[in-house]
């Protein structure tokens, strides 16, 4: 697959002013609400420390906790399956659906199912999986990837939704009233639900000591998956396990506050066994996670609890949209996670970052995203994955910056250019800076020149002992 050019994709979204402004505003507001709710909890920073430590502890004893989880879940009457690859994951679920003669299933938001493209897999085999989360459902209708892991259709304006519903569901394209649009969706969903033969869902936390799972949602989509049909299949990555039920409380307190500034998710569903007469399965996916766990450099990405706070705060993400990353995980966490799935395809994502550091500071489990961005840029350079756009300029930079003498030469050239070249040339495509900036006004002299003119002689006379250093011209 071709390399994702987030910069180019993002530039298109930036030009689309109404969408960009709305995206930026909605997500910034989420970040502001997050600040407010977090501020109200005196022990917030201690909670983040603890949440990070529990994740680190669990990840360093992952085999132990996964076995404990499997044992206890099995004792609760839940069937556990292990999948190493997306194909295995999809095939396990497909076979389960087939055994139960399922043609239509519903799914509450699941990142691992998105990661494996389960929907595509079963659709090719004649089944239909219907997204029950409103945002996901809108994206499914539009045949588009989610824009954000928590609010998948946040990049759409009301008018976009009205137009989409009109085209796909036959509603009035001119009515953009949210109550009307909700009504249209509700009527559509109800009809779908009548035919549901199996429910699928994701997992936020798998509890080793009890063998149960906890799933957080805001629309009750997971609960419909769980309660209505006779077959329930949950899917999770191996990193979702935590040791104790008590630990869940900590993460639930952090999750929704970080994500949307809500004190708690609307529905925090604990599932510890199948409903009477129901069959329940959990598929545990690896898909490169154990390899990530083994890496001393980037194992910390596995701490992520998928709250989306890093996306809300990222100045680049808010202005360029999640779609511009062309990835299942987008934004800051996407920049450091996706290269470990496909280094070539996602080699340029780590450059879509100003290094502002905000993502690391909002992350409830302290994934060191800014550090990992540095790491992946280094990997990209060493392995020559991304198009060689930066090689020439960086070699030139190294030659110029290596000593004060070469630097002075480079500076003088640049300043000469600023002072003497005609404006049209300075503003041309040769100077990308000029696309968005007025060029700097060149100063009369550099600091070095100023220093030599004003101080050097005096210091020289005061410090004849420093003669050698002063005269030495070998760099």
């Amino acid at each position, binding site marked *: 697959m071709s390399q994702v050019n987030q*910069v180019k994709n993002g*530039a298109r979204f*930036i*030009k689309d002013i109404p969408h*960009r402004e709305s995206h930026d505003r909605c997500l*910034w507001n989420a970040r502001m609400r997050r*600040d407010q709710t977090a*501020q109200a*909890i005196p022990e*917030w*920073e201690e909670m983040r420390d603890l949440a990070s430590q529990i994740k680190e502890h669990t990840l360093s004893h992952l085999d132990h906790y996964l076995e404990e989880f499997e044992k206890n879940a099995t004792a609760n009457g839940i069937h556990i399956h292990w999948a190493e690859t997306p194909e295995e994951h999809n095939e396990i679920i497909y076979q389960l659906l087939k055994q139960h003669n399922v043609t239509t299933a519903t799914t509450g938001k699941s990142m691992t199912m998105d990661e494996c493209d389960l929907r595509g897999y079963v659709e090719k085999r004649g089944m239909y999986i219907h997204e029950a989360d409103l945002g996901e459902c809108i994206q499914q209708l539009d045949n588009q990837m989610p824009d954000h892991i928590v609010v998948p259709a946040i990049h759409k304006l009301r008018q976009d939704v009205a137009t989409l519903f009109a085209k796909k569901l036959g509603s009035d394209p001119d009515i953009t009233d949210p109550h009307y649009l909700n009504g249209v969706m509700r009527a559509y969903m109800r009809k779908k639900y009548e035919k549901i033969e199996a429910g699928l869902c994701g997992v936020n936390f798998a509890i080793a000591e009890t063998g149960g799972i906890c799933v957080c949602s805001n629309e009750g989509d997971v609960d419909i998956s769980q309660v209505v049909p006779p077959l329930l299949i949950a899917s999770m990555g191996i990193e979702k396990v935590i040791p104790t039920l008590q630990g869940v409380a900590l993460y639930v307190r952090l999750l929704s506050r970080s994500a949307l500034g809500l004190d708690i998710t609307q529905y925090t569903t604990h599932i510890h066994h199948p409903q009477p007469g129901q069959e329940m399965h959990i598929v545990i996916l690896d898909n490169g996670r154990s390899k990530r766990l083994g890496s001393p450099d980037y194992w910390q990405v596995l701490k992520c609890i998928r709250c989306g706070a890093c996306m809300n*705060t990222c*100045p*680049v993400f808010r*202005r360029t949209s999640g779609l511009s990353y062309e990835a299942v995980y987008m934004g800051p966490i996407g920049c450091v996670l996706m290269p470990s799935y496909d280094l070539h395809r996602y080699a340029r994502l*780590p*450059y*879509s*970052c*100003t*290094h*502002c*550091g*905000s993502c690391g*500071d909002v992350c409830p489990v302290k994934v060191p995203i800014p550090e990992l961005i*540095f790491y*992946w*840029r280094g*990997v*990209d*350079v*060493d392995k020559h994955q991304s198009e060689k*756009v*930066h090689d020439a300029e*960086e*070699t030139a*930079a*190294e030659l110029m*910056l*290596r*000593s*004060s003498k*070469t*630097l002075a030469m480079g*500076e003088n050239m640049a*300043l000469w250019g600023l002072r003497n070249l005609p404006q049209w040339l300075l503003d041309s495509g040769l100077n*990308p*800076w000029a696309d*968005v*900036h*007025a060029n*700097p006004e*060149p*100063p009369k*002299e550099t*600091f*070095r020149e*100023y*220093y030599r003119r004003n101080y050097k002689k005096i210091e020289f006379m005061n410090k004849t002992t420093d003669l050698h250093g002063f005269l030495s011209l070998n*760099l």
Partner: protein
Amino acid sequence: MKVGFFVPCYIDALHPQAAISSYQLLKRFPELDVEFIERAACCALPLTDMGYHKKACTLERNLVPLLAPYDAIVLPSGVCTDQFRGHFDSVEQTDEVKHIREHTYDIVEFLHDVLKVKSLPWHPKFPARVALHNGCHSLRYLMMARPTELMIPHFDKAADLLGMVEGCEVGYATRRDECCGFGGTFAIWDAPCAGQQGLDKVSDYARNGFKHVVSQDFSCLMHQSGVARKNGLDLKFYYIAEILNGDAQP
């Protein structure tokens, strides 16, 4: 105390006044023996930032003997200070290198934390309302102020120092510590996003009625002033030492 004054490449060439004011400011303290490290060039940030660690290594190796002799190395730039403290690691971590990393300060930190300055006896004046822009590196990596993301007690070292300037009234943009989009090389290879971030930032100042913007990171201000001028906004930008040393007037 023997202080080495390091001038980052972009300040040397594009805004030497930041270095002039800082150098003169340091020279005001009789207990300091201040020396401009003339032969030191760039801190290697543009290379490390883009992942070119091997190339950065050459630069870092050249710098070590030039910086090691000083008790403290002071820079008029938060982002370059963070480069030394946080990322000077392409080169072998000898005792000399460790000494450099632990004794490099941005001038705001140096005045605030090392010299513990409580007043500015030369009585600088700046009778105006200024928007303080804490650059991301100064803020989140060097912790010169409380980033709004962290739920810790409020502090702001640059604001403390500006508070000692007569008439200077410190305020902030509405999105006070959102990144302005400079990001070193980012402003060049992702110009559309950097430009939008910059425009959002300078419009925020203008909406809040600010005419003057001050920062301890002139790199951010180079970007912001370029965007402001391109968009015809009437804003003036100052490096913090220009105000602290009494060189700038509103």
